[in-house]
């Protein structure tokens, strides 16, 4: 029976400082299949993979690869035995070349010297095999994220891996790039590689996976062939309760024009070029587009965080000037940034600090001293209103799950009492259950008369909760569509409208 699987994980247990994060977890991967590993954030997917890869040491349990038992003590050991992993955070040395990155840790040698020629030729051969068109001598920081992803996958393949773990490989890819990635995955599947695919994106799972294993709260829930599964079934397994619908009902009704943007352009690449649109009060306006289309840059420009070269913004017909974020906040704008970990949270600070920091001026009394009491009350109110799961407001924010961190950040901006909410990828890296709550929160905000601009790379959520969607392409506005009347195909075509040769060269 054993040979039927390329990888068998049996009864793995792991706890961190007394908290058990993996409880008797099992996973069996057949050769030549894509095995989706699913679960909410904190379900233990990454921990399990890190145990497999020798980054963590499990407390008990066994790993069998092609029938032989292994217990990897470090990543090198795992790599040498046919297990490789593409990490979610793309661990790469950006200042070095593609070849240097691919052969890192096992440079071929000629005498005492590194054999550059062999490295180059091997890289070329590898790229030819995977149909990747990149010059191996390019430095990684000259590549786009998707190209770097390809390099990382090529690297995983180059170990002659029997098992390749892909941890959320598409989180920063556009649909077109995802297709390229899937071609490579299909090629590997035909070569007989067992692929463990971790993702939160349901659509992808149904496109590429053969089998699905679900974990919940560190426990093994089950394994099913994709043919026997539906989206609802997977969600049920993941959250343990029934989420009938992935999106709450759209109850908000857009009113009169609230904000008008005319001819907005920015200076630095990726540039925003001559974007004009209107936002109605109580409306949720989605922003779609490929990576590099200028969506983030557009909202940053509106918030005064990016240099503008032209453009007028009118609120209720009156011209305003968000020259910097400080003025934007005074004009009742709020920006939820895309990179929550990098630019959103203060990880070692507590929830109180993270909730009140954007609004800290308003907590001063006449003497300029901050009033702890008011800050605490406001924080408790946000924790209650948004159902943030935390033991108390003194908890460090880094100890919360991604979804709860995001709620704290949204709460931070709500405390500034904004009128225009700019949300950049508000649900990135958040699990299904928490996503629903964030959607509900956004709709409630629109209901209360606030206007929302929501940038997202996830087509379903744009279609699910927005009223209109503006599609950006190569820095320009390609069109604004009514969500009720549009299709994924229309949005996809619009997002490719202004792609020219220079952009093609980057993709």
């Amino acid at each position, binding site marked *: 029976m054993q040979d039927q699987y390329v990888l068998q994980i049996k009864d793995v247990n792991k706890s961190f400082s007394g908290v058990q994060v993996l409880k008797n977890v099992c996973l069996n991967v057949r050769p030549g299949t894509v095995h989706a590993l699913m679960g909410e954030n904190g379900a233990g997917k990454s921990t399990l993979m890190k145990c497999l890869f020798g980054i963590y040491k499990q407390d008990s349990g066994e790993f069998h690869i092609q029938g032989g038992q292994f217990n990897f003590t470090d990543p*090198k050991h795992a790599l040498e035995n046919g297990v490789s992993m593409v990490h979610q955070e793309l661990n790469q040395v950006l200042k070095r070349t593609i070849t240097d990155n691919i052969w890192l*840790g096992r440079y071929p040698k000629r005498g005492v010297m590194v054999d550059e020629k062999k490295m180059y030729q091997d890289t070329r051969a590898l790229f030819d095999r995977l149909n990747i068109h*990149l010059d191996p001598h390019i430095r990684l920081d000259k590549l786009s994220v998707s190209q770097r992803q390809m390099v990382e996958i090529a690297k995983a393949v180059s170990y002659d891996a029997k098992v390749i773990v892909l941890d959320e490989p598409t989180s920063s890819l556009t649909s077109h790039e995802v297709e390229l990635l899937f071609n490579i995955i299909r090629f590997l599947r035909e070569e007989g590689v067992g692929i463990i695919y971790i993702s939160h994106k349901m659509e992808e799972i149904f496109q590429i996976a053969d089998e699905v294993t679900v974990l919940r709260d560190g426990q093994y829930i089950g394994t099913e062939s994709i043919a026997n599964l539906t989206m609802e079934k997977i969600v049920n397994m993941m959250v343990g309760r029934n989420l009938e619908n992935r999106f709450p009902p759209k109850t908000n009704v857009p009113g009169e024009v609230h904000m008008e943007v005319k001819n907005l352009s920015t200076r630095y690449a990726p540039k925003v070029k001559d974007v004009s649109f209107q936002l109605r009060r109580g409306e949720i306006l989605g922003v779609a587009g490929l990576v590099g289309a200028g969506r983030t840059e557009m909202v940053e420009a509106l918030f005064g965080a990016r240099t503008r070269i032209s453009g007028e913004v009118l609120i209720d017909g009156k011209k305003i000037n968000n020259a910097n974020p400080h003025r934007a906040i005074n004009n009742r704008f709020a920006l939820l940034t895309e990179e929550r970990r990098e630019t959103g949270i203060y990880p070692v600070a507590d929830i109180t600090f993270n909730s009140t920091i954007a609004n800290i001026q308003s907590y001063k009394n006449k003497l300029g001293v901050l009033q702890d009491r008011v800050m605490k009350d406001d924080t408790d109110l946000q924790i209650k209103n948004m159902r943030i799961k935390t033991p108390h407001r003194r908890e460090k924010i880094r100890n919360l799950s991604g979804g709860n961190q995001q709620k704290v950040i949204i709460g931070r901006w709500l405390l500034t009492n904004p009128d225009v909410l700019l949300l950049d990828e508000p649900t990135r890296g958040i699990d299904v259950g928490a996503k629903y709550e964030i959607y509900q929160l956004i709709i409630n905000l629109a209901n209360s008369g606030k206007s929302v601009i929501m940038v997202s790379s996830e087509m379903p959520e744009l279609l699910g909760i927005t009223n209109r969607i503006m599609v950006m392409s190569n820095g320009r506005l390609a069109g604004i569509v009514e969500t009720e009347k549009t299709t994924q195909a229309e949005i996809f075509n619009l997002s490719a409208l202004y792609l020219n040769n220079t952009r093609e060269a980057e993709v």
Partner: protein
Amino acid sequence: MIETRKNPVQAVSGFFKKSREEWKEFLVNNAIYIVIFSIIIFIIINEPAFLSLRVFKNILTQSSVRLILAYGVAGIIILQGTDLSLGRSVGFAAVISASLLQRPDYPALFFPEMGQLPLIVPLLVAIVVCAFFSGINGWVVAKFQIHPFLATMGMMIALYGILSIYFASGAPGPQPIGGHEMRYTNLAVGSTLGIPNIVIFAALTSLVIWFLWNKTTFGKNMYAVGGNPEAAKVSGVNVLKTTVLVYLLAGVTYGIGGFLEAARIGSANNGTGFGYELDAIAACVVGGISFSGGIGRVSGAIAGVLMFTIISYGMTFMGMDMNFQYILKGVIIVAAVALDTKKYLKKS
């Protein structure tokens, strides 16, 4: 597909055909060479006598030990680290070398009973001692994840104590160790075929360092660990070993540097080398060896060291007040870091 390689003909004809953006990038990337060149032109205009073989030799001679030391700390900076114990380490090497290479007829001998040693012995002892302490730095930094600034600051202080104990333990008590043998002094001040010996030392060290950094697994691992330690780790690179090796290599350069420095000055005491770490670090930074890690070339270290020597030598040559030199140096260091940041960070 991106093609970065051009054939030489295209490269030459393309040199002057640059867009404004490309010129800007060219200027930023070559700022240090442009600044050095401008300083030289400025000095020559004021003092035409600066343009002479003698001056050229002097500048190279004065740069040599600094360059050797800069290579050591450069490797550590490439690992996102820094080394404050460099100066004391150099001082230790200088005192050891001097104590082992005194003329037998000198009145205040450190080791009165000791006979003549081959030159290589004191050099090796200096190297081993410096490498030992620097290796401890590397191990502490990698093993306990202590910030190199703090780890090496501790070493700097402790090393001064150890060095002073050794310095005071000689037969004549704690007093400057002079009276070096001629063959030793000659290593630093003599010439071979018209080239100062000390410059030959620096050139050889440069070659070895260039080879280690660019042609060996050790060098590539160093850049990888410095550029992204996590990436190196999950690719199976032994980060601890690489870190310790980089610090050991630094210790070796301090040993060589201290050995030559005592010979050059003609005397050594427990204060020798004090503050050298800041000169070496400044030279690296100005030469584009970035504190953000993973970036740095041999040519950058050379340019950085030469620049500071040219400034101090040239300004003195012109009779300019010493104090202005400090102001200029300070401004240049900060400006260089600002440029460096512009070069490697994304514009927003």
